[in-house]
């Protein structure tokens, strides 16, 4: 131990002992990054009205509360439907756009790229207010269609960036070879290019799903009526009180996120 403290820690002459403060600091920060979120999980199984840790009596009452509430169930269904549809809309059109920008060497592609990543740069409140106004005119306020369109807008920059960078690592000559052997472009794309960038595509799908599932501000404006999202209801509940049901819902949301990440790790694993 003492030897380790005195041994050099990097290319310079600094020793591990001199860096001990850094190790402690890093450990504390990493714990602070992860633990606050995870502590909600055991708390959600508490029997008490007040969230306590560790819970004195364990129970599933907040889960019963959640699953027994028609309101929460409807909101969950809306959120899941919207997230799945957003994934199915944003991924293909985003991948197509990324492919177009990569393959077409027109001078406008830089401008098109900047346009496609603006949804990531514009403050989300502004997108929400704008969409609210547009949806009143288009008469799609409080519909799943409207939610999917707005959430797809948010997801597109991520899909374009993730897929675009994967395409940059892909040798387009392979596609050229397939085409010179007689494959039409769409077939060359589907059978040669797509399998090569599948990790990026799967990641894009996950990102689009989560972008929609976790989104709050836009949903506050354009979801409601028969179709409020889970996050919208959670946010409204948070402003009023600290209902332990939210802890149960949070736990389920953490589970869904983790599940998505594991799915990507399994299906998205590739050479890239």
């Amino acid at each position: 131990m003492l030897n380790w403290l005195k041994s050099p820690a990097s290319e310079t002459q600094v020793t591990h002992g001199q860096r001990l403060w850094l190790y402690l600091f890093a450990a504390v920060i990493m714990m602070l990054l992860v633990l606050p979120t995870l502590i909600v999980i055991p708390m959600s199984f508490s029997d008490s009205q007040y969230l306590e840790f560790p819970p004195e009596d364990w129970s599933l009452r907040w889960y019963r509360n959640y699953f027994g509430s028609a309101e929460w169930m409807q909101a969950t269904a809306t959120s899941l439907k919207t997230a799945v549809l957003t994934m199915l809309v944003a991924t293909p059109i985003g991948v197509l756009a990324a492919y177009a920008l990569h393959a077409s060497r027109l001078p406008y592609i830089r401008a098109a790229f900047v346009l496609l990543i603006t949804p990531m740069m514009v403050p989300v409140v502004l997108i929400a207010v704008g969409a609210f106004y547009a949806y009143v005119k288009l008469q799609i306020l409080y519909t799943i269609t409207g939610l999917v369109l707005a959430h797809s807008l948010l997801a597109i920059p991520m899909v374009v960036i993730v897929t675009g960078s994967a395409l940059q690592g892909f040798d387009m000559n392979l596609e050229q070879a397939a085409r010179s052997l007689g494959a039409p472009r769409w077939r060359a794309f589907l059978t040669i290019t797509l399998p090569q960038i599948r990790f990026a595509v799967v990641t894009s799908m996950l990102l689009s799903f989560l972008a929609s599932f976790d989104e709050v501000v836009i949903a506050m404006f354009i979801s409601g009526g028969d179709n409020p999202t889970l996050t919208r209801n959670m946010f409204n509940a948070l402003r009023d009180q600290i209902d332990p049901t939210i802890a149960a819902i949070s736990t389920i949301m953490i589970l869904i996120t983790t599940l998505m990440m594991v799915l990507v790790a399994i299906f998205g694993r590739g050479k890239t």
Partner: protein
Amino acid sequence: MTDLHAAGLRRDERLERWKLFGLASPAILLVLVILVIPVGWLFYVSFVGADGNFSLENYERMVSRKSYLRIFVTTFQVSILTTVLCIVIGYPLAYFISQLPTRWANLCLVTVLLPFWTSLLVRTYAWLVLLQKQGLVNQWAISLGLWDEPLKFVHNMTGTLIGMVHIMLPFLILPVYGAMRAIDKDYLKAASNLGASPRRAFWTVFFPLSTPGLFAGSLMVFVLCLGFFVTPAVLGGGRVIMVSMKIVSNIELFVNWGAASSLGVVLLALTVIILWIASRFTRLEQMAGGGH
């Protein structure tokens, strides 16, 4: 004959390029219809007065009313403090991780990415639960004798900052880590061989090389803070009012589109200016993608 042929080929190629470009049209159309046109309309509305004519009253209100000035001051206060705290906390952590062997570094990066992936609302809720009056932090601190009375951590600036820093840290750490990983360790070896103390080697060699990542990350954090809504709304408890919250209340409570849109235009202008400055130094997609 050959000339004709070449012209034909060129035309074909141009057509092909346009056809390919057309594949991007669904995405471009979506951005135009849901984002550009509505925001353009907000821009227009911000210059329309209560009487329906062109006027600057929405902007004059922002300058003349103290309450609006306070909102901008708060917004900058929160954004600057969050950015500074993120740098102070995030830079050493990124440095620590960058010094580890890849396998350990990836493990540590999971602790950064895990909250990154978890819902913002869930994380904000978690802090609310931990920091409230009867929350864990107060309970533990009192039982350990650190303080006697429950301290007020939420529904004020402190709570807002804690929550914001927790949410923004990954946006700073990832680009900084990316920049640090790219630094050739031989430079440090060279500095050391030439007699530099570890401190000097760090400040004259390592730190300057990591600044592009630090710069990109800090600006990203700052820009995201400027327009942030959820965390200050929940953890600020109405005492920390930022521009985005005023926009929301202007519409939800007062149905005042003029006031809301002019605030939105100012917020957007600030964002664009900062991103423009940032784009002179780094690639935007690098900022957005966190540099991984």
